[in-house]
């Protein structure tokens, strides 16, 4: 098989994950003691969350907070009625924030959609409630129509004469997604678009969705750093290899988890395992845990714990980090799959 090596995993991630007993996840954990209360207190009266307690509601932190609350026992089984209500109000905030063209924007006053559209579609799909199908459908259509600017015919022609295009190593024929419309393809927005397109609703979009998924996956593999892992999407500049980072590597691996045997997946997962103990901050720590758990890898008991990371700077009060920590201590089966 071209581009592949023998898989390093003894069993496939889904199988490995199924072998992990459910009671290994979320008990009386740091997430339960610190992060869940932070999320409860940080919700705004409009149902949304800001990036910090008391800050303006934004789509991105709201998505993560909803996902975190839903993850504790699965969205249909959240036992705490207050949390169920908080989730419902968060989901309502998201639906109400949708723009007329089906997209979502990064701030309430902005009327141009961006990459958070993928995040919302992923979260709404995960809520498993049919009443969101129209919103999801509008969002997925916008995602499929949102082509990056760097791969237009005009830009490809311009690149022939551009010095900068010769200084980077990436295939301009491939097209993923950018952070904002009319810009270039990058790792994280491409990964989240792929996660959104896992929604069962995407099958109704037919060949365009399939084409975009294939192109998006190709972009991620093209942008992988030498030896495994991803950074923002610059694997090499001026002949110097870029360093991978935990957060983009996690989202890329989740988006590509259908291909566990591919050399790139194997190398990147190995990179994540090797670097897990070097992580110094709670956000990356939580996200790396998500990555390893989603691939059925055990977490090393000798690594620092979430509370030790939090003690350093109180996670800078981040709702997002609190949400990721809850997800990291939850069973990925309860929240990772679209429609879960």
């Amino acid at each position: 098989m071209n581009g592949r090596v023998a898989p390093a995993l003894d069993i496939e991630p889904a199988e490995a994950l199924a072998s992990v007993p459910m009671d290994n996840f979320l008990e009386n954990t740091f997430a339960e003691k610190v992060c869940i209360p932070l999320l409860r207190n940080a919700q705004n009266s409009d149902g949304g969350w800001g990036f910090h307690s008391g800050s303006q509601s934004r789509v991105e932190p709201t998505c993560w907070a909803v996902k975190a609350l839903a993850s504790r026992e699965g969205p249909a089984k959240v036992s705490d009625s207050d949390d169920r209500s908080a989730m419902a109000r968060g989901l309502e905030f998201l639906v109400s924030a949708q723009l007329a063209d089906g997209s979502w924007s990064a701030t309430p006053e902005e009327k141009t959609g961006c990459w958070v559209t993928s995040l919302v579609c992923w979260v709404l799909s995960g809520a498993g409630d049919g009443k969101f199908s129209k919103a999801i459908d509008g969002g997925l259509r916008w995602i499929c129509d949102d082509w990056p600017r760097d791969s237009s015919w005009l830009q490809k022609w311009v690149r022939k004469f551009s010095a900068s295009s010769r200084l980077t190593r990436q295939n301009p024929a491939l097209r993923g997604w950018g952070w904002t419309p009319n810009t270039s393809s990058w790792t994280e927005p491409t990964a989240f678009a792929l996660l959104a397109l896992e929604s069962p609703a995407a099958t109704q979009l037919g060949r365009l969705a399939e084409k975009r998924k294939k192109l998006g996956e190709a972009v991620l593999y093209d942008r992988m750093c030498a030896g495994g892992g991803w950074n923002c999407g610059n694997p090499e500049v001026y002949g110097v290899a870029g360093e991978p980072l935990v957060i983009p590597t996690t989202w890329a691996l989740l988006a590509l988890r259908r291909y566990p045997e591919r050399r790139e997946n194997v190398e990147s997962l190995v990179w994540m395992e090797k670097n897990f103990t070097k992580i110094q901050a709670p956000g990356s720590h939580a996200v790396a845990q998500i990555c390893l758990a989603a691939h059925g890898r055990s977490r090393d008991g000798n690594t620092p714990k979430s509370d030790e990371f939090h003690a350093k700077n109180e996670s800078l009060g981040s709702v997002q980090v609190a949400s990721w920590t809850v997800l990291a201590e939850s069973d990925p089966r309860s929240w990772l799959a679209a429609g879960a």
Partner: protein
Amino acid sequence: MANLRSHALIPSFQRPTSRVMIRAAASYEQELGTLIYESLADFALPVKDKVVLLKPNLVGLDPLGVMNTHPAVIAATRESFLRLGAAQVLIGDGPAMDRDTEAIIESVRLREFVGPLARTFVDLNIDDVERVSLPTRASRLKELYFPKTVLGADFFVSMPKLKTHHWAGVTLSLKNLFGVVPGSCYGWPKNVLHWAGIDSAILDINAAVRPDFAIVDGIIGMEGNGPIQGTPKECGSLIFGDDPVAVDATCCRLMGLAPERIKYLASAGTMLGHVNTDKIQQVGEGIEGLRKDFAVVPEFARLRQAA
């Protein structure tokens, strides 16, 4: 717009002379507090009872301390502003390539120098934002979102590291302001700025969010393929000034580069500050004594200035 930095755009010939101070500082281990305090005191800055925001250049994981503004400089500057009577001195940045800002500040050991950061450090990438109409049209951008912490600060200090940059030529106090453009609105990297044109975007951002002061960490800079993958370059200097354009122009001269050949800096010299030496009152050490010629990538070889 409340508290949007209120400096008017003034043509160079109408602007008063700017003041730049170069101080020799051999290493980060030396006592920097007194040096920085005395330098700032010499400018008689209006910071008493004010909220000061320090904006260092934090671009990536940097355990060796070669790509980011050094924490010893940040901590000494913060202490100095407090000694000068500032009511609060915040530190804020929005790194462009990595959304885990806390991982970056831990990698540079900022907490070891400054203390707990929960109430001192603001991640500008995820701060509350406000939309601002840009007063200039250097790029096609008509407006940008900026962090409320930046717009609300009484006194804003750009604190870059002395570095060359593979797309812009140099990255100093003006280019450093890419870090106030929030990633939560524009992503990691803030690619909309690249599409707008890096040189033009630097001008538009600096015309909207005007730093009151600049302090450049030139103790160890970076040459070649900066801002991340370049080579450390000892320069042994700290550069202070009340005009970021003049500070950057002086830094270029310290690096052996011609500021008027750097596109955005030449343009900034027409409306934001001074590039020409006859409009810059330079105090402290002389340029020639501390000049270290920095290597640049081949595309910027034209920036070289004869010794």
